[in-house]
């Protein structure tokens, strides 16, 4: 009985904070746009039988008709994929450096990685506008050095979105990789060298496979939120930046088309379920391996 009570807590939590909101969104996605409050019909006021009769998948069909939506999904997947890759490229060496740093430095380095979280995420993204704009710090610095004559257009392009995502999600990549590398016994690398590996080979054959779980965890922790990211593309991206989070926001607040916006959200969730399930399985396997 006690065990049941213990398990019930997270399940109730998930039920009220995830399943119920999801069902509400799903219900809205099946309804039609209406000039009313709330701006869709039918609602519970029409009676459940009448409501169920009027439900249809029109909005989902609409998503496939208008190519804006699937292009936005694809573009989001692409941006999320490449920014995850870049974050890995940047984050792995940092995590490696931290794990190999002298013991007394590690706490400080860890602190530096977490430090940005102490400031609002929104303010940090705004700060990037100041850095990346045409007369921003970056362009001024590059012109002062003499590397460029004309300011580079970075802000309001996909490059700015990549920079923003990599910057924002870097700690989520570093921390799990660091945790994996920190546990790695240095003598394993020595053993690999002793058995005939060069340093580079030892890295590929021992360090990378043994930090694999950290890499996978880090990649999912970056990829999943990046896919639905709204703030970064809307602040740093331009009109050409297509991301599904941005579309969702526009449908909801600019067009006030709640049913289509809900359909977009439901499809996004379905896309996200695949990596989330994969991530969960990886975590589970890791937990089993450690037993």
């Amino acid at each position, binding site marked *: 009985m006690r065990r049941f009570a213990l398990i019930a807590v997270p399940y109730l939590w998930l039920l009220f904070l995830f399943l119920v909101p999801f069902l509400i969104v799903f219900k809205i996605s099946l309804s039609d746009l209406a000039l009313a409050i709330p701006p869709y019909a039918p609602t519970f006021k029409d009676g459940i039988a009448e409501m169920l009769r009027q439900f249809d998948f029109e909005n989902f069909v609409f998503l496939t008709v208008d190519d804006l939506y699937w292009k936005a999904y694809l573009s989001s997947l692409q941006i999320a994929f490449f920014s995850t890759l870049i974050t890995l490229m940047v984050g792995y060496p940092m995590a490696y450096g931290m794990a190999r740093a002298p013991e007394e430095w590690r706490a400080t380095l860890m602190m530096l990685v977490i430090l940005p979280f102490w400031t609002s995420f929104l303010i940090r993204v705004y700060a990037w506008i100041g850095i990346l704009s045409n007369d921003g710090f970056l362009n001024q610095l590059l012109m002062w050095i003499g590397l460029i004559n004309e300011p580079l257009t970075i802000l309001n392009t996909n490059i700015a979105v990549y920079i923003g995502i990599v910057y924002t999600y870097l700690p989520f990549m570093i921390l799990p990789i660091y945790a994996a590398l920190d546990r790695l016994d240095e003598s*394993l690398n*020595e*053993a690999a*060298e*002793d*058995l005939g590996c060069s340093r580079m080979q030892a890295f590929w054959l021992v360090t990378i496979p043994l930090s694999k779980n950290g890499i996978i965890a880090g990649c999912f922790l970056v990829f999943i939120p990046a896919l639905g990211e709204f703030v970064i593309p809307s602040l740093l991206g331009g009109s050409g930046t297509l991301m599904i989070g941005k579309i969702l926001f526009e449908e909801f607040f600019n067009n006030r088309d709640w049913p289509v916006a809900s359909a977009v959200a439901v499809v996004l969730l379905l896309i996200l379920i695949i990596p989330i399930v994969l991530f969960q399985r990886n975590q589970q396997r890791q937990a089993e391996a450690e037993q």
Partner: protein
Amino acid sequence: MSQTVFAPWADPDQKPLIRFENVTKKFGEFVAIDDLSLDIYEQEFFALLGPSGCGKTTMMRMLAGFENPTSGRMLLAGQDIAGVPPNKRAVNMMFQSYALFPHLSIWDNIAFGLRRDNKPKDEINARVEEMLKLTRLEKFARRKPHQISGGQRQRVALARSLAKAPKLLLLDEPMGALDKKLRQDTQFELMDIQETTGTTFVIVTHDQEEAMTVASRVAVMDEGRIIQVATPADIYEAPNSIYVADFIGDVNLFNGTTSPEGDDRYAVHWAEGHPPLIATSAQPFSDGQSSHFAIRPEKIAISTERPTETANVLQGKVLDIAYLGNISTYHVALPSGQIIKAQTANTRRISRRAITWEDPVWLSWNATAGVLLDR
């Protein structure tokens, strides 16, 4: 009938496999190895023995190539190996933590080094099977390291380091993680494997019993220096210093001054009012030279009646008896206050033991039973 004794160190024509020439290793200001010279011969089972921090691990890491000497030369089969990286040396190491790759199966762990040499597949397979057989691990080939016991892991580590048939195998505290019973079995197994493969083994250990059991020669180290290199028997019976005598086994020490008595015999005057101890020594001592007489507890006879034939006889009172089952160690207080340990085999049942606490007893030994040390 003459038996050839394995003693290449006694043969001046033999070339050493490893030669340390005035090797010094410093870490910052700390001197880990202090001007050390040493020869190790082919097929030897050489033990580096010493307390932690004596530099034995540093010596091993220098042989493996993880550290380079600050000065001096290290030769492997006549070649200077300073600066040669670990992956280019015909030396393999068995790590104290075993350092088995947790993501690879036992089979792949053993094949790891062979694969790096780009050997043909059949050759690798044959060699891995041979190693599995040598270490009796055939049944576990497909398992991962965390799925086997500590003793099996130890054998995997050994098989992996032997797979490439190195000229020299380094073993860093190879039995440190095993319990006592398993350790004793493993020691003999290790000796068998060393004999079968004919590989030169250098073992680092702080366990003197282990060093004595497995090694052909033992180097006793302290503070980056080698105090004595000799066979286990010589280390035990003829230590060259108090440090070695005290580090290996139990010893009773008498400090005094010597006076020669002729025929390599010396009298050691060790306490006022006591007759001097008579000892023989091949090493000459001058009259009045301060010296230390060392004698092992098992070389001292203990009796209730005064023996007449032996050269040295002391009287005392039994203070304590340490009963170890097969042997007993008697702690005997002399009138001078010094406590002497004497050991006897328990050939009789304990209820029939003649000596008990507080008994006055006689301790005796021959002139040749102990050694005279000058340091």
